[in-house]
């Protein structure tokens, strides 16, 4: 077996994952903090004000990375849900279920900061615009996954049902992303482009990149920590948990 496949194979075993998460989750949190603080400091105090929006645009350095996270966490959740449904791997189920609250939190932050930005710039907290509405649907999808997982007594059956919902909901991800192109939207289009020249001022890119990597690192830590706790609870009758508990006393 090749080493990468072997690694994934081993990681499927709950005690191995537990040891891995114990070791790495704190590091992801520790690494993400200076990156996030740097990004926020740059966004708040260093980059110049926007020529049209003045200082209100500084919300961008929270709003946009949070929105990126709301979509990428959904993708991580859907991929894990797919693996869980096809290969019935308990760890993937748990990973998928632990993505949901973090994704919901980032989506919530996106919506709140969007509203707080919309008030001074658009003159309204909320409008039923394609981008805003599809992002709200994303929040409901996350809440649906959390709710469905909590509503069914049998943990494995609950995870399967919620994984199905997560997988079906993935159609909403491109809708959120392309909504500003497909429909006439009050929301502005993308200014950071991978394949064409970005239309954002270069000085504003550095804090955005910092926030991009900072939130990714943070999510890695958060997902490991959440999944570790959830697996520990799910596996509480097993020998490895018993041994781990005895080792702590």
């Amino acid at each position, binding site marked *: 077996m090749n080493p990468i496949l072997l690694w994934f194979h081993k990681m499927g075993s709950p005690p191995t994952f537990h040891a891995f998460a114990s070791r790495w989750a704190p590091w992801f949190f520790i690494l993400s903090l200076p990156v996030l603080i740097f990004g926020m400091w740059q966004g708040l105090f260093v980059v110049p004000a926007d020529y049209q929006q003045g200082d209100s645009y500084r919300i961008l350095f929270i709003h946009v990375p949070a929105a990126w996270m709301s979509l990428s966490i959904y993708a991580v959740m859907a991929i894990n849900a797919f693996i869980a449904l096809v290969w019935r791997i308990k760890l993937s189920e748990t990973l998928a279920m632990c993505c949901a609250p973090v994704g919901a939190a*980032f989506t919530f932050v996106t919506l*709140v900061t969007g509203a707080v930005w919309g008030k001074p710039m658009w003159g309204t907290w909320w409008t039923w615009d394609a981008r805003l509405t599809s992002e709200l649907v994303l929040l409901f999808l996350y809440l649906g996954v959390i709710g469905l997982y909590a509503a069914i007594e049998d943990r494995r059956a609950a995870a399967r049902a919620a994984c199905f919902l997560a997988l079906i909901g993935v159609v909403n991800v491109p809708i959120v992303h392309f909504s500003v192109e497909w429909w006439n939207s009050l929301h502005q289009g993308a200014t950071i482009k991978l394949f064409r020249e970005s239309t954002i001022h270069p000085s504003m890119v550095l804090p955005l990149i910092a926030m991009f990597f900072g939130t990714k690192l943070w999510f890695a830590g*958060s997902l490991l920590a959440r999944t570790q706790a959830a697996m520990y609870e799910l596996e*509480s009758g097993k020998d490895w948990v018993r041994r781990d508990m005895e080792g702590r*006393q």
Partner: protein
Amino acid sequence: MNFVLDQYAPYVWTSYAVFVAMLVWDFLMPQLRMRKVRRELGKQQRREAARAARTGAGS
């Protein structure tokens, strides 16, 4: 840094505060859950040990 007194300051600070509050929540949730699970398991193990000791003494 003149935006500290800018008309948009409340909006900007609210956004950053919401984000930081979310991170704090996200950091604490798994720690609290792990602690709760370990506490419950510890209780359960002590109960089982006590029961085993009782039945051991009775036989």
